[in-house]
């Protein structure tokens, strides 16, 4: 009996260790300034499996896209990281049966791509920015790379002469060919963008010249590899820490994916090997609430949550609160707790309110959004835990 107990204990220890998943950033000596997916440095990386869930927080108004993503499943990706004295680099590999690239000549195609999201402030694991591009007062930095070719700047870098319709130039024959070639050379074939955001409506591209990230993307054997290299520290972000939170998103252009229509991880811990410091974040990001999921489900029903939230995919969609059908896939236990007790701490930047004017899901006090959801701080702690445990089960199956 004692032996059996021991076995059980050790099994549970192993289980705990296995569930405390994190991405290891391996310290390397190589220069990481312009690292791509084909670089040798990745042989030193330890790949970790992460799950990306379809983001179903709000429903967009593209009829075809909604139809195609009706029953999206989660996907698995492999992530590795390396860092040196000044930069950190990530690689993400994810399956995608179709290579979707935009080439600047089609109106209803979308490119595959990926993004890495970093929290500007992560010292308190309980108040990380909202997973969907941050929230008021909790900014994130997002690096985006899409496979899009032939994109021009709207003002053509101020070069008016090469924005003229070729038919209206004075050129013929070879001269016209030369003109067309010059115009073509003004296109960008690398769709890399970096943003600061406090909620997705506020997303602002970093165009102040300070951004020094470098991202690459490549398709091989029914899947994409994407890499991102960025400084450990710049004016928006300081990643010099033992553990940092990272979230990864990928887009499937084949399913008309763009912006919120994507696959998303929860905040995931990245452990920088050799750096010392608090690992509280590691525990927090892996926390599975110990509440009773069955009781939690009951509490969700009894407290009227379905009045404003779509909880399970079979529940009716609503324009009031964000849909929670995949919340277990991309929210941390701390976030769920905070949102139950203090709903105004993070008001999800959902619909443009003009789009659903009869749903007052927040009010404004000055500039501050105050959630219409009442705080459930009066519930017993154990009830809150049950609800959190139940919400953590809400997620799509893996494809």
């Amino acid at each position, binding site marked *: 009996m004692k032996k059996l107990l021991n076995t059980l204990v050790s099994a549970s220890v192993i289980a705990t260790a296995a569930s405390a998943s994190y991405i290891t950033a391996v310290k390397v000596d190589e220069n990481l300034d312009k690292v791509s997916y084909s670089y040798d440095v990745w042989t030193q990386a330890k790949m970790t499996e992460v799950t990306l869930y379809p983001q179903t927080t709000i429903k967009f108004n593209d009829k075809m896209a909604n139809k195609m993503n009706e029953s999206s499943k989660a996907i698995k990706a492999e992530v590795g990281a390396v860092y040196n004295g000044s930069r950190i680099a990530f690689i993400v590999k994810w399956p995608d049966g179709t290579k979707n690239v935009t080439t600047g000549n089609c*109106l209803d195609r979308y490119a595959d791509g990926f993004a890495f999201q970093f929290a500007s402030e992560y010292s308190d694991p309980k108040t990380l920015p909202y997973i969907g591009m941050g929230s008021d007062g909790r900014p994130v930095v997002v690096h985006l790379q899409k496979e899009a070719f032939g994109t*021009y700047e*709207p003002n053509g870098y101020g070069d008016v002469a090469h924005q*003229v319709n070729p038919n209206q130039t004075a050129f013929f024959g070879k001269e016209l060919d030369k003109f067309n070639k010059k115009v073509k050379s003004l*296109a960008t074939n690398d769709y890399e963008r970096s943003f600061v955001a406090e909620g997705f409506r506020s997303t602002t591209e970093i165009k102040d010249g300070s951004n020094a990230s470098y991202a690459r993307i490549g398709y091989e054997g029914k899947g994409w590899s994407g890499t991102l290299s960025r400084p450990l520290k710049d004016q928006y972000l300081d990643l010099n820490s033992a553990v940092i939170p990272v979230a990864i998103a990928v887009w499937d252009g084949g399913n008309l994916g*763009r912006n919120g229509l994507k696959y998303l991880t929860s905040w995931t811990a990245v452990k920088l090997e050799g750096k010392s410091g608090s690992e509280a974040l590691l525990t927090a990001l892996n926390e599975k609430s110990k509440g009773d999921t069955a009781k939690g489900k009951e509490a969700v029903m009894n407290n009227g949550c379905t009045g404003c939230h779509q909880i399970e995919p079979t529940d009716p969609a609503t324009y009031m609160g964000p849909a929670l059908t995949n919340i277990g896939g991309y929210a941390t236990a701390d976030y769920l707790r905070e949102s139950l007790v203090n709903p105004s701490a993070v008001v999800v930047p959902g619909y443009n309110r003009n789009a659903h004017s009869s749903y007052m899901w927040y009010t404004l006090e000055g500039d501050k959004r105050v959630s219409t959801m009442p705080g459930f701080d009066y519930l017993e702690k154990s009830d809150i835990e049950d609800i959190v445990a139940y919400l953590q089960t809400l997620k799509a199956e893996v494809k």
Partner: protein
Amino acid sequence: MSKRQLAMVMDLNKCIGCQTCTVACKTQWTNRNGREYMYWNNVETYPGTGYPRNWMELGGGFDAAGDLQEGVIPNLEADYGVPWDYNYDALQGGASFEPNVEPTWGPNWDEDEGTGSFPQDNYFFYLPRICNHCTNPGCLSACPRDAIFKREQDGVVLVDLDRCQGYRYCIAGCPYKKIYFNPKISKSEKCILCFPRVEQGLPPACAQQCVGRIRFVGFLDDEESQVHKLVNKYKVALGLRSDYGTQPNVYYVPPTESPVKFDADGKIIPDSGRLPIEELEKLFGPEVHDAIKTLKAEMKKRKETGESELMDILIAYQHSDMFRLDNNYYQQVAHENGQHPLAPVDTRYIAGKHTKPDNKMNFFHGGHGHTAGGHH
């Protein structure tokens, strides 16, 4: 809602479908840079497929409860049509005259077809369309980036190209499909009501060039403007498909006159008209009955007494009277807000809290707006 609203009235009784407005707009704004397929102004034959093809069936707009409706993003080849050109250069070498793209569809593919059987009861009329600069825009409501804004000073709806990321929900959200995706810059673009002209006191190019003098432009709250008189005083100008719930600000004087029908023997059917009122009701709502009544009554009054302010307005004796665009108004607004009068973006939206203020306008000063890996 903006403080003031600039509006346009189009008198459909006078539109001859000459497409001068279309050409004026095209040469001014959309003959280049990925806009080649776009017609910010188009004139379609009604009944007909319209532009883009069957736009009334592509969703968008709001339902009665005020909820934005799902929509479809049209396809270039099937719904808009790929602009084609011919091999003029090669003709000299004896080649045959060939288009560079096989033309399979385009705007006005069904021009002047209309409906009914000739000569008994066939009919059609022209429907010129621009962006409606709606009071409750579907495109603006659909944008998850808040990249579309409605100007306070005149209600013109614009896309902030710095914020736009080319998601195209605006196109699905606009029930008129009057916002377009520019694949070259990967951003949405639309009719800007020629605001750089308007701010200088000039009417939009389409209105200026209109040979039929069908277009009136002015502020709705300016009681001296002909737009105000047609929309608010006489109530003869009505929004197109107001049932979409976007509160459009381009108004139409419905076509009142149509030829009589012929019977099977080719004889005139007395007191008949070829334009079914149901079609007009579908386009302009139940108010169309009163509008037509007013128009007919004023026409009669004019015939009998020689006087009618409404008829004088619609005849448009003086082209300049059709536009009341107070130039100084814009100068004043710009001065009050410390703006450049021609600022093409609403700086409220690029003012990212975390981006350096002195570089916010980088993009519009001809700067490169550095992004690593971007082409320089």
